[in-house]
């Protein structure tokens, strides 16, 4: 196993420690080590590592850099709200806070390069400096020159520095139009089921044997592997459900080795966990409480998505109904639905659908404010004065995200909206005001 991690620059013992901390990632770690070369040598300017969530990218980098005591800076791109923050963090971790304070108020890239060079002439790198950037995909949203410049930072600052980008998406999605220096690509594949088993089994409960825990992980993976391969999530779920698994053991009903009985006990429980706590319908805290209380009472805790009922003022309900009708009915059919004497439009003629697909499959369509109000006035059973509060209700529906404004905020003239609620929600709302919405929908005619 350790044969993969062999490098003349580092002591055997240290590499051994690294290898222990990186189960199932020896190949990748070995490749990285050989890429990095000896500490004082120049390394390749930029390395791009990609792989799914929780496939060990950051972990491998952390362990390697920490254990081998290499100078490095780790930055998460999501945290760097501005480039200034990014530059500051880099300078801070390489040269201390004096250097960081040299940055002007809103620094440009060249400011950073200037200060870096200035500092590095005072304290040149004896070993390769590494910059690890997590969630590098966010770099695409920053200034166009930032990513290409970072990729060849080594040339720009004339220092022994290597940049390592970590991302969940492939390099092809990064490549800027103008072209750039191509980094070395390194892929971290997903853990296989066996590997997951091996890794998860490592963190065993102190009061139980390793085999027992391993068999628990086996059962857990059997249930969850088909829906979730995220190591982090799996570990979380394992921790949440382990006490339940141990329950018959504590009662003295079953022995540690009797895996079949244990499986029978835990399996329905895990299935339930998959529907609730894994989807965050029920919080982990509540889940733990549910386990402590008796099985029968658990029905009382309802998931987040179970609460869909929304109480609305009377006219808001009708505004929402009008918006729904305007979104899902073609405008030309309004005459048919909302005019008392709509002339001789024959139903068969009328029903000739030029497009076969139902409007509900196509999703809501935008409509102007005038149409919304026209439908609203014909839908509400009593006369409503066009008061200011009717209009303010429209905007409050927008803030509640029940309607969405399609046109730009600045457009005061004839704003356009879309209805953003589902059919079920709408039916529930219209039932409370005893309005038969299905009768007014073109799709259900």
């Amino acid at each position, binding site marked *: 196993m350790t044969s993969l991690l062999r490098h003349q620059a580092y002591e055997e013992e240290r590499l051994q420690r690294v290898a222990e901390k990186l189960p199932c990632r020896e190949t990748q770690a070995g490749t990285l080590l050989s890429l990095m070369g000896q500490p004082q040598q120049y390394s390749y300017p930029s390395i791009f590592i990609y792989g799914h969530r929780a496939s060990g990218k950051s972990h491998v980098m952390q362990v390697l850099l920490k254990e081998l005591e290499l100078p490095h800076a780790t930055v998460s791109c*999501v945290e760097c709200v501005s480039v200034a923050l990014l530059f500051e963090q880099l300078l801070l971790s390489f040269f201390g806070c004096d250097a960081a304070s040299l940055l002007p108020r809103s620094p440009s890239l060249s400011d950073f390069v200037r200060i870096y060079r200035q500092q590095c002439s005072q304290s040149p790198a004896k070993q390769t400096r590494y910059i690890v950037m997590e969630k590098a995909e966010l770099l695409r949203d920053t200034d166009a020159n930032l990513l290409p410049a970072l990729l060849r930072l080594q040339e720009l600052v004339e220092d022994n520095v290597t940049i390592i980008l970590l991302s969940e998406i492939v390099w092809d999605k990064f490549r800027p139009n103008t072209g750039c220096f191509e980094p070395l690509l390194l892929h971290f594949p997903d853990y296989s089921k066996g590997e997951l088993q091996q890794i998860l089994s490592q963190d065993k409960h*102190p009061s139980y044997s390793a085999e027992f825990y391993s068999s628990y992980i086996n059962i857990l993976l059997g249930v969850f592997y088909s829906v979730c391969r995220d190591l982090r999530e799996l570990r979380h779920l394992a921790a949440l459900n382990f006490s339940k698994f141990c329950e018959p053991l504590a009662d003295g009903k079953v022995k540690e080795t009797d895996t079949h009985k244990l499986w029978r006990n835990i399996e329905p429980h895990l299935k339930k966990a998959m529907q609730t706590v894994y989807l965050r319908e029920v919080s982990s805290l509540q889940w733990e409480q549910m386990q402590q209380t008796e099985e029968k009472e658990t029905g009382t805790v309802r998931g987040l998505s179970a*609460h869909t*009922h929304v*109480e609305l*003022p009377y006219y808001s309900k009708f505004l929402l109904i009008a918006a729904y009708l305007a979104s899902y009915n073609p405008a030309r059919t309004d005459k048919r639905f909302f005019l008392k004497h709509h002339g001789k439009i024959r139903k068969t003629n009328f029903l000739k659908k030029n497009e076969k697909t139902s409007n509900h499959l196509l999703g809501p369509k935008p409509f102007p404010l005038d149409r919304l109000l026209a439908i609203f006035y014909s839908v509400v059973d009593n006369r409503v004065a066009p008061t*200011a509060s009717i209009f303010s209700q429209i905007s409050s529906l927008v803030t509640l*995200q029940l309607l969405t404004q399609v046109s730009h905020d600045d457009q005061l*003239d004839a704003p356009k909206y879309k209805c953003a609620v589902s059919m079920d929600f709408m039916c529930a709302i219209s039932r409370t005001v005893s309005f038969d919405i299905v009768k007014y929908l073109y799709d259900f005619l």
Partner: protein
Amino acid sequence: MSTSSVSKGCFVFKPSAKKKKTPSLEDYFLHGCDAAEHRETRFKLCQELWDQIKADTEVLQDELNRKILDSLLDFTRKCSFTRQHSDWAAQMRASEIPTAALVLGVNVPDHDMTFQSLSDLLQQSVSPHVASVQAKECGALKHLMKRVLERLMGTAVTVDDDEEEEEAEHANTPLHKSVHCSLSTLCDWYNAKTKKSSSDTPGKKRSSPVREDPQQPPVVIIFKDLEAFNPRVLQDFILICSRYIQRLPLMFIFGIATSPSTIQRILPHSVSSLLCIELFQSLSCTQHLATVIDKLILTPHFPFKLNGKVMQVLVSIFLYHDFSVRNFIKGVQLALLEHFHSQPLSVLCCKKKEALLNVMQLSQSDLERIRQLPSFERYVEKQEPQEQLNLSTDDTHLKVVCQKLVKELRKYHKNYYPILRCLHTLTTSLPRYPLGKQIRELHITCLEKNVWEYEEYQSAMKLLKMLAKDELIALLQRCVEILQPVKSKKMKNAWVQLEELLAKLKQLDTVVAEAPPCVEESLTSPVKNLGKKTDLFQLQKTLLEMNETRRAKKLSPFEVLRNEALEFIDGLVKTHLATPESQTLNEVCYYSSSATVRRHLNATPRTSIQAALNSPYYYLQNNSLITEDGSVSNAAPDICVVYKLHLECGRLINLYDWLEAYSTVVSAAEGNNPDSDSFGKVDEVKHARFIRAVSELEFLGFIKSTKQKTDHVARLTWGGC
């Protein structure tokens, strides 16, 4: 103002702060008050009443929120507690950020108050580090970050004094540049803070017993309106926070207006898996309103009352438009102000002692006003001729009578509300709620007309007469409970009587067993007659008779008692639930101008624009603009003329024709000779005026340019003329 500048241009004059004297609330009130006398008294009374109402509602609000806030506080404590103890499971678990999803309902204006008390409570009992943010101030992640840091570190610096001052200070002296605006700064600050406080003053900390762990109080961030937040910003923020959760005990509170499923809509699984979300549901706003009405309106404590129409307007604004209790209270405030402002006799609308004093200080003109009150006129008509003369001439006598009447009005209110509650208790148990489900509905009915004149009341009474014994006893028991605490002679009497009835009803069980059925023999006689041969008419008659006798005879002791009880209740209703309008001097306490309230609270901008265009004299107060037939005079402002002309057109308006018509009308207004050549000719000035008027109409949204036809504009409104 003038400048010494020679050049032409715009000059900005900033008002000098010293010179400007802002008129106080009192000045506003006093200015334009109808009657000069007692203005100050009225203002003082109004102010006092409002202060009392405000204080009461705040207490009420706190009480209502207490339950949910308590559970929320429990949650925060539990979270900060579980964070500290470290067993195997705690280590293994992904460290989630504890999050409380607080579902508050769609009445967004009310939320501010709730959040205010929530953050106050949190600061008192859980953690000094509380920051609340709103969506509109956090458009980007940068801003959100900045707000959070500002509020946390700002409030922490100054624990005792107010926040605003601190913020202003921040704006002036940039203590920390925006460059440092990251969570790691916050972490450092937090560490320094907790270390300092734990080493500095351990004695002080121990004095507050609620705080279990002074070393690690959580950092609470409240998102007031989750729906309005940009999902992207929120996701990023949560991602960042989750990186620091080990070093910084963060905690979120989401304020949700619609339903908890919005969380799942806004946050993808990868983000929501970082949160440990627990749900908290607040009281529904209709219940909230019910308690507010119960405590504010249905009580004799406040001398100020709303009449039925005003109540109706306020309640319908609540139900139809906004669901906002705060706006409802604002409406009450408006009515209060208007009442004291416009009704000179409102000096009498106060506590009993004061009112009696104020009666004696009424001026000549005030007394005259009293004599003109419709309710007082009605009262006078009922009196003896001599008394009538006295009342209309003798001022001191009138004052004495007024004192009596004020006392009577007070008594009326004291009795009205308990009886109203009794009636409501009785009728809400009936099927289909003949008199309304909510007490406010019954109250409004009572305010409008004598309640016993309604058909619904009769049917409710009929239904009540069909109640079973145990139901009736339970209802009467509740009525007794309502009447018991009332301190009024009549109510005490009523209470005693009702108690007696109730006792009789309860004893019935024992009595019934002894009383033998003695109705049998009388019932048999008509049946015997039936055996004889009779014609149809006879038969019908006998059957009817039989029916009558059966109904009359069949009354069991319970039914007798039941009828007695209900008649007693009916009597109470008839004596005490008469409409306030029938009471003398009710104008003093009751505010009745529902139109004013509606106009102020539920404005109709479009209607007023149309009214202004149709009848400019109404707004310009210029009599020369009035015309007999209601049409617009020639001399009206250009836009009115143009508007009037456009009403005569169809969907598309030819601009040239319009201009011609306009110029004819305006020429007539200028008094040009209709036969002269220049009459109706378009000159440059008229052209310019026309263009301006048309563009004003376009701005107001009556027309818009169209590409369908050249030189035409499209009309956007219909009807109106």
